[in-house]
């Protein structure tokens, strides 16, 4: 506890790095998963294929994935971010597709009857109604990404894992505690925040 307080700035820096890496990965993953999920919602074959590929990527053990990327992209944040994007695709694609498929056909019909074009339908009806399921996917993906970022410190990506690895290397328990507990707290806080958002969306969207 003393070490933690004396080195609060060091922990804060690591936490900041951690959040930046995790957010970057999540943003990239979402940018890929959203269009793929939208197409997958309408075409069964795309859905099967996308889930099979993303599911395969998800199964690869974290550290093995990071190691396999080293010959291709070397050490550093790029390596970590590619791995994290790969890990979060499956849940994001699945939830975007499931969310859109869950929109009542009657609602879609009504919107079409009102003269909405396909893009309007997507942006103003389908995506807003799918939002709670999409946020549920983001929640799982965010926790995954935070967890992978801890390991990614081993390939020099920075973040809270750095404290853990330094602590292990120098046999300095307080450093390990600070890194590990802060990482746990971050994961729990993000999960709780997104759970709250999810519940609020369910209530307002009446899904």
């Amino acid at each position, binding site marked *: 506890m003393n070490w933690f307080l004396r080195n609060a700035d060091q922990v804060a820096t690591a936490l900041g790095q951690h959040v930046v890496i995790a957010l970057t990965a999540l943003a990239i993953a979402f940018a890929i998963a959203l269009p793929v999920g939208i197409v997958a919602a309408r075409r069964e074959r795309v859905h099967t294929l996308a889930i099979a590929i993303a599911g395969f990527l998800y199964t690869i*053990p974290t550290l093995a994935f990071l190691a396999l990327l080293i010959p291709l992209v070397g050490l550093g944040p790029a390596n970590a971010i590619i791995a994290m994007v790969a890990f979060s695709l499956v849940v994001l694609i699945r939830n975007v597709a499931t969310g859109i498929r869950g929109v009542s056909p009657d609602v879609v019909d009504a919107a079409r009857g009102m003269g909405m074009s396909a893009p309007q339908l997507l942006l103003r009806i389908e995506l807003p109604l799918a939002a709670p399921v999409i946020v549920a996917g983001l929640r799982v993906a965010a926790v995954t990404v935070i967890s992978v970022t*801890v*390991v990614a410190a*081993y390939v020099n990506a920075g973040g809270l894992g750095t404290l853990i690895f330094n602590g292990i290397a120098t046999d300095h328990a307080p450093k390990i505690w600070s890194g590990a507990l802060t990482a746990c707290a971050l994961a*729990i806080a993000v999960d709780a925040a997104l759970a709250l958002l999810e519940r609020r969306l369910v209530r307002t969207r009446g899904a």
Partner: protein
Amino acid sequence: MLVDAWHYLVAHPVQFGVALGVHLALSVAALSIAAAIAIPTGIYAAHRRGIAFAAVNVANIGRTLPSLAVLALVLPLLGTGFAPSLFALSLLALPPILLNTIAGMRGVDPDVVDAARGMGMTARGILRRVEWPLAVPVIFAGLRTAAIQVISGAVLAAFIGGGGLGDFITAGIAMMAVPQMLVGAIPVTLLALAADFGFGALQRRLTPRGLCA
């Protein structure tokens, strides 16, 4: 690169065999311990509202914890080696099994249970011959998730001296020796895929025919 990895593997057969053995032992033991705790707990909790609520909440928090953080937290408490790694991995495997056991048991149609009771089945008979078979596919889905998590987590056990295939990866990264890294990374990936496939097949086989769509 793959050829170099193969040469490395052929040159270190004993080392590889031991690492693979330790990795499998860690994974199987952790999964068994977690299942032995989580399945009975889940069955007990499923029909008790308060306990189920508490169990689901605790398991949900447990599920969000980063694997490496849990392994690292065990280090100052229990030290390094096989046993501390096993302890941490068992903890990591608990939440998915517990959550799926509770979900599976609660997902059994109350009408079916009612019908069984009406036919004069005892509580134990209902559990063994009605609820359990109907819940098994969901429980196995939890085991599948836990198995992949444990195999993946066992790689990280190398950081706290747990041994296993992660040793090749960490040593390979430390010395920037790509072949050595691959000797750890490729088998462990295959192991995870095999577990995913195996549990998936088992899950389908154990699904009662009446539940198949």
